[in-house]
């Protein structure tokens, strides 16, 4: 599964990058973020796009898994 590294990126850039990345990976992807606002925004965006969203903690941030 594709990983999108959004560590160190402030909103709205993680969401913009996720939006671009799911065009090429419509089956889903993992987005890595390290701030809470990005975690919430990417999760919300994933749900709005009809994905199942699972957030797991990782070293220094979160892995947001978007799956069909």
């Amino acid at each position, binding site marked *: 599964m594709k990983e999108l590294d959004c560590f*160190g*990126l*402030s*909103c*709205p*850039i993680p969401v913009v990058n996720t939006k671009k990345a799911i065009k090429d990976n419509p089956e889903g992807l993992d987005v890595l973020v390290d701030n809470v606002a990005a975690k919430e925004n990417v999760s919300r965006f994933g749900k*709005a796009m009809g994905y199942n969203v699972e957030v797991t903690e990782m070293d220094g941030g979160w892995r947001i898994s978007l799956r069909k």
Partner: protein
Amino acid sequence: MSKEKRNLIIAGVLIGAVSVLLVAFGNPKNMGFCIACFIRDIAGATKMHSAAVVQYVRPEIIGLVLGSWIISLATGEFKARGGSSPMLRLVIGAFVMIGALMFLGCPFRMILRLAGGDLNALVALCGFIGGIAVGCFFLAKGFSLGRYHEQASLEGHAFPAINVLLLVLLLAVPSVFAFSEKGPGSMHAAVIISLAAGLVVGILAQRTRLCMVGGIRDIILVKDYTLIFGFIFIFVAALVGNLITGNFKLGFEGQPVAHTAHLWNFLGMFVVGLGSAMLGGCPLRQLILAGEGNSDSALSVVGMFIGAAIAHNFKLVGNATDNGPNTYGKVAVIAIIVILLAVAAAKTFKKEK
């Protein structure tokens, strides 16, 4: 309805109500909160500029930063981070301030002015949305000021600590500051009330990620209607509050701390919309992020502080008594728009190695 939307509605209503109460307790009309005006007043109080009518150490600003600092420390969200184009952020912060002072208000005060019936704020809102839309164009094409990096925690505490110092000086030796004897700077609620209001709003804004720019930006970029709820409910609560307290007056003319130069209200807030979209949030959001340990946002606030001094020292501000800006201000706003577009283009189309 999602939990996030519900929380934004609650926060919006509370913040709108607090804003109206601050006016009832002595703040200038339609200025329960104004991040731009209040940072400008602090710049005046610390003698960075000498506009005698706008000098006061606004405890609301201190409260906002400390509220965000305290709650982010309590929830573990505080994280010292920085290094994402700090100098550019400082410059853009100064530009945002000059744009806001052209209109005489930040996005927060724009909502409060709308809620007070000031139709000049409606013209400004159009400019603000236009600026955000242009910012979104660049964001969608890949605009970024670059990644931040984790910093030693002291880096994140520095800005909140400056605010603590400012508060201690205000309480212990106020004579070191300049205070307006007349004009908007002389109108304020009691220190304890202003500070408490700032703390409450700071905590609410930190928890809900409230942002005046984010609401409109998220709609344009990803059709996400969550953050706009905060914006709308601040307006609704302040409107109801103003109607109850008799501070609602519909029209363009004779509005408190305002002018009717439509083009410059529009362009001033266009600058604020575009600049804030580039910074990733409105002036309020920058204060909140600075409280969470984001030194990039802290520098954008320092930029606003410098921008306020520049705006008054070089007479770039929209003038409420002369009804609008002078030539210097007009040239400055046009030049700023050109520079912002150039920076946005450079950070969008030139790929970093």
